[in-house]
């Protein structure tokens, strides 16, 4: 059984994001880059199947050289090998382009299951997993919190408002992971030392024979509106404060 997990490297969720001078990208100088947290669920699930079914786990990422760090983290967690599609200008590419490139790289690996995070925490587009399924003509089970692999089939759960959908599909298929699927393991120290020696293949867009053909462009990146400072309601007595509060709610906030 072959399992592929696609990994995006994103800014650490604790990073203070600053918008770059071009007004449509972020300052990347002081950023700490990490594996997209939703992808970690995919890696963990793949590693469970590696143990249970003897599956071989390949992690695939695309972007500049720094993306090897996210791939190595997955190798340190226990993945068997990695493929980096190296391209300096890939961060922020049209998700459909990303999917096209990943599909090309994944196809020769003959995967039975391809895991994605249900979305990436940086751009929140949530498109790539579905688009890869489309390009490879595979069924997809999206936003799942439970996976059970049978003989040539897979069952997955997707929580919906007030219920759980139980989905079933044949293999090969694409699965996108939602929080709750599992508790991702740490990369243990021996795992990190071993990861150094695991194969990490680096290929280019040219090697894959794909050219970028982005249809979507980010035209502007705006910071969230600054929150107005709070206002302290003045008054000597409780009664006075209450009267002033009502006045403010009616005249300034216009909510009553």
């Amino acid at each position, binding site marked *: 059984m072959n399992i592929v997990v696609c990994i995006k490297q994103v800014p650490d969720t604790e990073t203070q994001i600053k918008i770059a001078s071009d007004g449509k990208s972020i300052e990347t100088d002081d950023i700490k880059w990490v594996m997209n947290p939703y992808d970690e669920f995919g890696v963990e699930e793949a590693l469970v199947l590696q143990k249970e079914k003897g599956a071989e786990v390949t992690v695939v990422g695309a972007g500049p050289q720094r993306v090897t760090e996210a791939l*190595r*983290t997955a190798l*340190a967690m226990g993945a068997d090998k990695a493929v980096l599609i190296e391209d300096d200008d890939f961060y922020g590419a049209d998700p459909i382009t990303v999917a096209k490139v990943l599909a090309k790289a994944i196809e020769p690996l003959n995967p039975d299951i391809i895991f994605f995070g249900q979305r990436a925490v940086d751009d929140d587009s949530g498109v790539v997993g579905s688009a890869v399924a489309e390009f490879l003509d595979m069924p997809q089970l999206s936003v799942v919190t439970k996976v059970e692999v049978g003989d040539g089939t897979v069952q997955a759960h997707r929580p919906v408002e007030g219920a759980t959908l139980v989905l079933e599909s044949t293999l090969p298929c694409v699965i996108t992971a939602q929080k709750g699927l599992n508790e991702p393991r*740490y*990369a*243990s*120290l021996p795992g*990190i*030392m071993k990861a*150094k020696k695991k194969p990490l293949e680096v290929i280019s867009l040219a090697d894959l024979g794909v050219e970028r053909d982005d249809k979507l462009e980010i035209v502007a990146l705006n910071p969230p509106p600054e929150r107005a400072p709070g206002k302290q309601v003045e008054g000597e007595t409780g009664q006075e404060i209450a009267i002033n509060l009502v006045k403010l709610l009616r005249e300034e906030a216009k909510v009553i």
Partner: protein
Amino acid sequence: MDFEIPENLRMITDTVRRLVQRELEPISRQVEEQDHIPESVVQTMRELGLFGLSIPEAYGGLGLSTLGECLVYEELAKVNACFRNRIATNNGIGSQGLVLDGTEQQKQRYLPRLASGQWIGCFALSEPGAGSDAAGVQTTAVMEGDHWVLNGRKHFITNGDIADLATVFAVTDRQKRAKGGITAFLVERSFAGYQVGTIEKKMGHRGSHTSELIFDNCRVPAENVLGGPSMVGRGFQSAMKTLDKGRLTIGAAALGAAQRLLELSLDYAKQRVQFGRPIAEFQSIKNMLADMATEIYAARQMLHHAAWLRDQKGTAVIKEASMVKLFCTNMAGRVADMAVQIHGGMGYMQEYPVERFYRDLRLTRIYEGTDEIQRLVIARELLKE
């Protein structure tokens, strides 16, 4: 010149940082109050490989460089000194004698158990009458048939209460002492006549214990002389070699704690308001913050350089190791003092971790060679050159 920390070491510190934030920080207060680390947490530390940082891969460890080991301690020390103590003897004084001088058979028997954390190792040199003057040990070892018989009392032994294997230094020739009369023995807890004495009550480092070890006609097989029969009388040299790396790692622990104290102080200074503004706006407070950060910066460069040097040379860095221990631990003491000052009364309250760091750090200037002994070593090396 390249000051970049290698990728795999950065990954290792990330993992340790995650452990600290998710598992250790939340229980640090409880550990302090109960003077005990829960077994489940020790198990997580075992699974991550923390007990075998410095033990060679061939014996089940990670074979991490000195720099790598120091980086791990820096991270661990940001939470609570006791967590480092738990793994420090297996990675340091409790295993390095074996790594450096052990016979193949001894290494195979003991190192994998220490690397996995299944066993705890300790280093038993100090005695009531022999501290800085370690060559003054009184514990004796006498050959009887195919066994050595040990008699004496060790004290202040880190992890002595939980150790399964002690490297014990005893006098085998009264006349020769440090010059051929002290021998190191590998003594298992189960050997007849081995006894754990009192657990000492300390100023800090709660969650980690030091104890007496008592040897009452303790019978040690002849093959358990560290390094084999040819090493009889060469234990003191072995002890000194073992302590050299330890000095760097204590520097690392002090540095990590100082870094955390700076972070706590920055947060507190920004948020504590007096006279209508955050205290961070007062020049006296700014000066302290600036001094803390500057000292930490200097200490870090020094430690990382000495660790790197040791990794490059593959041999002891005696003078540098002593300089690092002396500077980093004193620096951390000054930083802790300023951190208490910035926190005012809160800095004195157990509600905040600052007072604990203040107490815990004091030890770093004492064990594995006091300040005074470090200066002695540095000057001796200088005058030799």
